[in-house]
């Protein structure tokens, strides 16, 4: 049994950057957002790497990344991502800021998934981030699943194990550091990934070269997707409180780090 794994994921400012909210004519935004280097949303990144891993284990499977973001930034980010794992890209040219309305974004993404050539719903696994590192409301993936009428949805996924008959076992995070184990009879299904278990793949130039033969044309024909705030008004915007205490310590044990973090969090 093979799968067509469609990963939904876009870009976010590189998390190392200093973010400052500002008001723009289009609504809330980030100061100098276009100047900030971007990365693939780390949550979506986990989903993509898990998708590639699953595809590699189930012969005949393929991975498609559907990404709604500013074309120029997508192009830049793809040069880093495309070296990691094999995938095809469907690019939608529109704003990727978290202030876009999740319903509007979901509608565009669902339409793009429906329009995938030769899409077979019986093989469709819809992957994405359980959360987002942008200001997204964290519901987009679920909404896309509903629009595509996929009732089997899993969120906070850490692991998927496919079986030869097309069914699969899913581990979802629950309280207390435990997992809920579910068995799904087969595709279609929606899986919102937590962090997964896989390290970031190494850069492989051959994968990059192969990917770019399809990624470049996909970027060039990216359809406009002018999503907005959907009538939502933002009363106020603020970034999370930041506390800085810089101290460089090498070779600290995980236990020591954990203890310090607990103490630090407890202060607030």
């Amino acid at each position, binding site marked *: 049994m093979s799968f067509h794994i469609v990963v939904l994921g876009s870009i976010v400012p590189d998390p190392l950057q200093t973010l400052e909210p500002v008001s723009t004519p289009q609504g809330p935004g980030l100061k100098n957002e276009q100047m900030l280097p971007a990365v693939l949303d780390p949550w979506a990144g986990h989903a993509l790497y898990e998708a590639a891993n699953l595809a590699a284990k189930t012969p005949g499977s393929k991975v498609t990344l559907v990404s709604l973001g500013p074309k120029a930034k997508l192009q830049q980010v793809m040069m880093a991502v495309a*070296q990691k794992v094999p995938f095809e890209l469907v690019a939608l040219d529109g704003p990727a800021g978290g202030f876009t309305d999740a319903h509007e974004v979901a509608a565009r993404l669902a339409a793009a998934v429906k329009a995938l050539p030769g899409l077979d719903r019986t093989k469709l696994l819809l992957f994405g981030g359980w959360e987002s590192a942008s200001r997204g409301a964290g519901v987009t993936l679920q909404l896309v699943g509903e629009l595509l009428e996929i009732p089997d949805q899993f969120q906070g996924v850490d692991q998927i194990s496919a079986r030869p008959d097309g069914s699969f076992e899913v581990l979802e995070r629950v309280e207390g550091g435990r997992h809920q184990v579910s068995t799904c009879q087969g595709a279609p299904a929606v899986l919102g990934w937590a962090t997964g278990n896989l390290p970031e793949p190494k850069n492989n130039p051959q994968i990059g*070269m192969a990917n770019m033969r399809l990624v470049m044309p996909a970027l060039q024909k990216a359809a406009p997707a002018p999503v907005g705030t959907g009538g939502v008004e933002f009363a106020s915007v603020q970034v999370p409180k930041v506390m800085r205490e810089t101290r460089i310590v090498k070779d600290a044990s995980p236990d020591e780090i954990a203890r310090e973090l607990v103490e630090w969090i407890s202060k607030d």
Partner: protein
Amino acid sequence: MERQSMAVDIACVGFGPAMAGFLTTLSRRLAAAEKPPLESAASPGLPLQVVCYERADDPGFGVSGVVTRARGLREAFPDLEAAQIPMAAKVRQEKVLYLLDPVGASRRSAALRAADAAIRAARFALKYEEQAVELPYVPAYLHKLDGFVFSMGQLMQWMSGQVLSTGTVQIWPGTPVASALVEGQAVKGVRLVDQGVDRHGNPEGAFLPGMDVTAALTVVGDGPVGAVGRQLDRELGLPQGSHGRRDWAVGMKFVVDLPEGTPLEPGTVLHTLGFPEPEIFGFLYVHPDRVASVGIFVPSWFESPVRTTYRYLQHYVQHPYLWRFLRDAKLRSWGAKSILESGRRGEPVLAGDGFARIGEGSGSTNVLTSSGVDEAFTTGVQLAEGVIELLEAGKPLTRENLDAAYVARRRASFVEAEGRVAEKARDGFQRGVVTGLLGMALAGATGGRISLGEEPAHPAEKVSSLEQFYAGRIPAGDIAAIRRDCEAKGVPLHDALMDRAGWPAVPLDGKLLVTQQDALLVGGKVQAPPGYADHVTFLRPELCRSCGRKVCFEICSAEAIRPGEGGVPTFDREKCVHCGACLWSCTQRLDGTDEVNLAFRAGTGGLHSAEN
């Protein structure tokens, strides 16, 4: 070990201004529908396969304070407007300022002290304010009045976007090139760095040997400290008689948010000299939206063995002339970079069988006009024009053909003509600042026919001992005590010695004046991915142990090199910004050659800011 390989037509090393010029020109030709396609020999049936490997994690993570006349850039982009590129502004005002020393701690010669006294006495007749005097006359060759102020990071982001949007070439960030594949006098491609190794390069975990990428042409634009360019210098040699790569500087800058109500207009350019040390030049460029770049250059001919750029930069921004603008400024970004100040004299072999050199590493920087980005870009354009000519004619990319198609273009251009004028312009600095400035003026006024001084010695020869540098200011006994104390604490000497020499403590304010580690984290966002080897190593530990100067960790821009046990410095890859200052500051020459005991290889990580 199984090492994968892949064939392309053109492999490019490093995405800087020069490679942007090369790929902009080449990609336009490849995308030109009205012209016959240039077909791949490596992958028959496909268009020409062009890949560019960039060490940093993003094409926009370069560093440079850029003010440029942009002659080459405007030729390539005739409709270039500042509004197209974030942080770009037309130059509107340009001043050269001599900064007096308001704290009395800098090391000034008797001639300079006399000049300072004369300036203070005559200040009412001069353009004098806040311990600075504006030079009444600035030679035309120094002006950039028809040019732009850029952020290098944003300029590179913009240009990479232009190149990638054609869909004809690929730029791969986060992929350092370890070496060129050299066979005899020819280059056959490149080898990428190994992944999945420990800090010593030993395989661990998911080991992925660096791939061999073969190519008919390897374009080397990895800058002055790039591993591939230096490998070619070693293996193929420099042009006969050249000791060209001996004149260096490290530039370090803050990018700051200026306070509201700042009087500084976008496009304002200040060049300074005289402070914090006479040998250290500085700049302030104003971008749009109340953002400015402010920084200094510490040259290799500065004799101090404790030449800490960061501490000097902190004193520089507090000079009264600048501090009135920067008092309430906030750090946005930070970075550092080495500059090869040998210019035309440092030119390597520009082309050979299967390879060509472009950009700063190819000696394109003009050290008289203090201009490098536009010259580098132009050399890339020239190479692309030559390569297109050869490919269209079906000629092979041999030394002879590249000489005719690329090197000849370069020789006929302003890069060469002005580079020749500048070639000896800075030699006077080998004898001191005043002689250096006079030498520059003479070279500029006579079109390079007359200059002062002599060809630079190896940088190691310029570094004096601590006792010599601080003679008359810190007794030898005190220096010995400070040395013992710092060795016991495992810290560099520079802070203690500067404190003792009279430099005031830096009043950290958490906004602009922050610790060096905070500059890395808040400003440079420095990090390095796991699974790669250390790119800085020390070849012969016994030479480090016997080294009395250890300039490597004094100048290290990121405190990545620190004193280590047994006298051999340690290196922390996660902090390194790849500025390369350690490379030319190592005083331990190997067997009388220009090579030194510190090896600086290709590596990943570094700055993660696109605003520098």
